[in-house]
């Protein structure tokens, strides 16, 4: 999954350097979506969910 995030980001740069702006922005948005999905998956805990009970506010 992390490889896909970096692959789409790299594609965005390559498309941008090649002058293919729409493809570059599309690839960047795909990378953003994958990044958000992976972030939520990484911080989710089966025990706590998205909460952080060790912090008391």
């Amino acid at each position: 999954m992390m490889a896909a995030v970096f692959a789409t980001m790299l594609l965005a740069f390559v498309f941008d350097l090649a002058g293919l702006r729409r493809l570059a922005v599309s690839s960047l948005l795909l990378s953003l979506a994958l990044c958000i999905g992976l972030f939520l998956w990484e911080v989710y805990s089966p025990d706590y969910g998205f909460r952080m009970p060790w912090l008391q506010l």
Partner: protein
Amino acid sequence: MSESTSSPVAAVLNRLILLAMLAVLAAILTAAMVMQYALGEIPCPLCLLQRVAMFGCAFGLIEQLRAGNSERGGGIALIFSVLLLVISVRQTLLDIYPRPGHDYIGSAVFGLHLPVWSVIIAVALLLGLAVRLALFGSAQNATIAGRTPPRGIVQPLAIYVAAICAINFFSVIAQCGLGQCHTFGYWLLQ
């Protein structure tokens, strides 16, 4: 306001701010890679996602430096700056209270660990983009900006950022393969 933003001096200053932000981002990403390869500090998954957010921000800044009559690049940079802030704050909150198995990954730089530096970088990026908009407005001066120096620096910087993005991609393949990332070694070397 529109009179001041359409002056050539304002256009040059506007571009210099963008260029400075891009150069600093490239330097930070390079420093992170030096810490990884020279000091052997393997990045955690959230650290890698923070790099992605910085690359996205750099992409937006490059787009904005090339922009004609658009603020799209600035918007992209803002989105990824907010993403960087969210990820780095979450990681800081995960590690800020010492618990078994939850320590800051990597060494401290000037007394601050890297996720905390990421918070500072994200806030600085947001401030920089906000100040640029406050001082120079939108893309009304873009026609002047397109002709102002330093034109020749943008393309080499864009190629450099793309190159370090490529190195990071191959590094992620070496560290994580196509699966989950870990910090105890490189997947390819096991």
